[in-house]
């Protein structure tokens, strides 16, 4: 199996960058676009999703031999919904303002395809340790991506970061950035950057390969 040939560290790192859930896999776009209007909302939603992802990965991988294939999706949803409910109560207990800002999107973590996707594609086929690393990597990668969007949108849309004003009073807020359309613009800009970096890396690898081949021929 391909998964077993990778180390646990690889499982962790892949979610952060190479297989980032937002910038590479483009999963879970609903909360990504809806609650990334401020850095705090984005980070809170990212961390809540990461917690649910890690916990559901642990539960699914622990029970993978106990859950028959025929009822696996229903059971995964039950497990995910439980952790989402727990997160919902915890956020209400931590901050009512944050709970109001995130609104219905906390409950909608249940249907985030990233979480069910990792449960089905990874946790149900791997050990608890590997599933934890996968959940951590994907969860932190998701939270990082949401924060990237939230920070850009808040800086340009409100002239602040985590509520602290960054610019002089003369700065005119780009209101469009905190509206839904701003989410699409910012996501497009980040995707463009990621794809450009990826293509540059590929071009560099090809040119290195060509140079090595040329040097080899000269040597012959």
């Amino acid at each position, binding site marked *: 199996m391909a998964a077993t040939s990778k180390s646990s560290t690889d499982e962790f790192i892949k979610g952060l960058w190479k297989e980032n859930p937002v910038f590479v896999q483009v999963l879970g776009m609903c909360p990504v676009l809806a609650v990334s209007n401020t850095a705090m909302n984005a980070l809170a939603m990212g961390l809540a999703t990461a917690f649910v992802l890690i916990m559901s990965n642990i539960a699914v991988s622990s029970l993978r031999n106990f*859950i028959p294939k025929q009822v696996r999706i229903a059971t995964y949803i039950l497990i995910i919904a439980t952790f989402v409910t727990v997160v919902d109560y915890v956020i209400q207990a931590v901050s009512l303002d944050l709970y109001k800002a995130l609104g219905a999107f906390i409950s909608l973590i249940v249907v985030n395809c990233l979480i069910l996707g990792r449960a089905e594609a990874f946790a149900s086929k791997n050990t608890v340790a590997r599933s934890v690393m996968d959940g951590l990597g994907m969860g932190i990668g998701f939270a990082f991506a949401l924060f990237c969007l939230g920070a850009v949108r808040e800086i340009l849309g409100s002239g602040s970061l985590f509520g602290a004003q960054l610019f002089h009073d003369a700065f005119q807020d780009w209101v469009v950035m905190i509206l839904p359309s701003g989410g699409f613009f910012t996501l497009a800009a980040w995707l463009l950057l990621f794809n450009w970096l990826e293509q540059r890396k590929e071009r560099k690898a090809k040119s290195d390969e060509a140079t090595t081949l040329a040097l080899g021929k000269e040597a012959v």
Partner: protein
Amino acid sequence: MSETELVSRPAPPSIWHMYRAMVGVGIVCGLLIVTAFQVTRPIIERNKAEALQKAIFHVLPNASTSATYRLDESGGFLVLEGKGVGAELVYAGYDDNHELMGLAVEAQGMGYQDVIGVIYGYSFAEEAIIGIQVLESKETPGLGDKIESDPEFLENFERLDVSLRDDLSEMANPIVPVRHGEKTHPWEVDGITGATISSVAIADILNRSAQYWMPRIRSHLSDFQGDFQGEE
């Protein structure tokens, strides 16, 4: 289907295995949810009470204690005992000498995106709304949500006239929204350019609520001046 294929396919799990997985996971999940609910409930209730208390003192700045009253069937007001689920509530604010400073009243109505919930402070002395705080709003960020932060708009509620006719039956003048910069009377609400629907919604919410509450409150003023167990 050939016999060989039938033999090579793994046997399906029994119904018992499926029940065991679903019911077992369901019971554990249920226990986890109930535990989380029980642990966080007192904290959530305390947070909600603190937020409400903070809002009451925000709209009644001279008050230092408050008491909750409910409207009873006879039209009078009684100090709330218990949780008051489903009851119509108002919050009386008192200063350090237990002098009645005013009442805080919750109101809600439809905004541009969704329901807007507000709490406003009513001063008996001025017969006016003297403060407002938005408790719940999903208005458009950067536009409609200016109802919470626009200083010029909030100036409307430093003294918004809600005085009654002499017979205390209804308000002398309804609260009406006007275009930005056209306010000439103390019962008018100066709107916000670019957030017309949200600012008009606030004026309508306050008008409906004041039309309902002001005659009832003024005709039972003495109900709020008895002994009370104030909350700081």
